[in-house]
């Protein structure tokens, strides 16, 4: 069952840490957002494999926007 990972704050995608196909553990940072000079990781809610990353580095994302999908 695919699961969306959503941004918990509004920010700019600073770094994509995990890429499609990568295995992740619960709590691993999937992407890092930059907001107001702070770097804030968006963490995987469970163990699994990354299916897709629908955002690009430098892109602004809103709170609640999907930034990664787990398989």
């Amino acid at each position: 069952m695919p699961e969306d990972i959503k941004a918990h704050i509004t920010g700019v995608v600073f770094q994509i840490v995990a890429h499609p196909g990568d295995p992740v553990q619960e709590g691993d940072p999937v992407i890092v957002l930059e907001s107001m000079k702070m770097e804030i990781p968006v963490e995987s809610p469970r163990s699994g494999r990354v299916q897709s990353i629908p955002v690009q580095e430098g892109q602004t994302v809103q709170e609640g926007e999907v930034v990664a999908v787990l398989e």
Partner: protein
Amino acid sequence: MANRGEIARRIMRACRRVGIASVAVYSEADAGAPHVTDADEAVAIGPAPARQSYLSIDAIIGAARRVGADAVHPGYGFLSENWRFAEACRDAGLTFVGPSPEAIRLMGDKIQARRLMASVGLPVLPGSDGPVGDVADAEREATAVGFPVLLKAAGGGGGIGMARVNAAGDLASAYATARRRAEAAFGDPALYVERYAEGARHVEVQILGDGRGTVLHLHERECSIQRRHQKLVEESPAPVLPSETKAALTRAAVAGARAIDYVNAGTMEFLVDSAGAFWFLEMNTRLQVEHPVTEEVTGLDLVVAQLRVAAGEPLPWRQDEIIQRGAAIEVRVYAEDPAKGFLPSPGTITTLVLPAGEGVRVECGVASGSAVSVHYDPLLMKVVTHGATRPEAIAKMEEALAACVVDGVKTTIPFLRRVMAHPDFRRGTVHTQMVEQGAFNA
């Protein structure tokens, strides 16, 4: 004014006091912002990301040339401690309202600054004599000074790229993160190791030099209430600081500034332990966010003083004429959610009610309807109170914070109210780890 928000407005006010016209610069995100509409003139300098606007030396020098500006005030943050910017101003025939590019460069290299201050007799914390080459090197140095240690960026201060490491096992990941942050912030990933001073206070001394042989101090500020190594509450005088410690701190600060022939406003930062021992941390070669508490207790306008020094005038005061009257406290109202570990809270301000009254000063960069952008520092405003005594300043601050309304974004106001009510804060027995230890949690 190569800046935005409350500090641009603060500089503008000082300019007006001495009859200087002010020119604001603004990014696309700041069109119509209070610092733009308040200025005598305003120039657009680029897109919202700071790298393409407020951090672009070319864009700012270009704007200054277009309007025929005589001088550039950098404020704090952005390019204020960038020696290349100060040099570019000089090369363009613009007066940089601040120290020389050489002084900025010297103090911006935190390892060199440490060495230099140690060489003129200022105490520094035990640490690596230079940058560490790799994790193994960092571990050797950390073991030699003893855990916990701080990994600090050589290329710049302000708590950026700084990481506390409690044990050797945590060093590798902290080292990687700190290097990446240092590289991103300062373009230099070099790190050094310094012993971590447990339970210490952050006390700093305001310096003014005029380049004509006068270097004065404007007393101390206590700034221990911090999150992420960045300040939230500042005050002057520092409470419960023994007078002999204070005298030693101001003496050391002036000696350090004299050693580099420092010109204009700067701040010498120190850590002070409960026994009164102190160590030099770093020098900030610019106006400080918390300068208003010094202004409130001394009655002097630091930005006007900066402008006069930049114009080549001598400082008109003797050291013994600069005295602290009463007590002043500043709190920083950030668009952050203290209930969620001070997570950023960008958005649009729907309602804004500012406190006012005798002994209450507000330095505010936003208005009702302002968008609080993800691209910039989350500081919305500073509330400053001044009283005949510290309890009076605290009481005024409690009232001011109760009257302050910011809707549309989360702010640090609830946290700041808890600080004011906290028995340790009221006693003045504060230290730099209190916030992270949860002392002020709801």
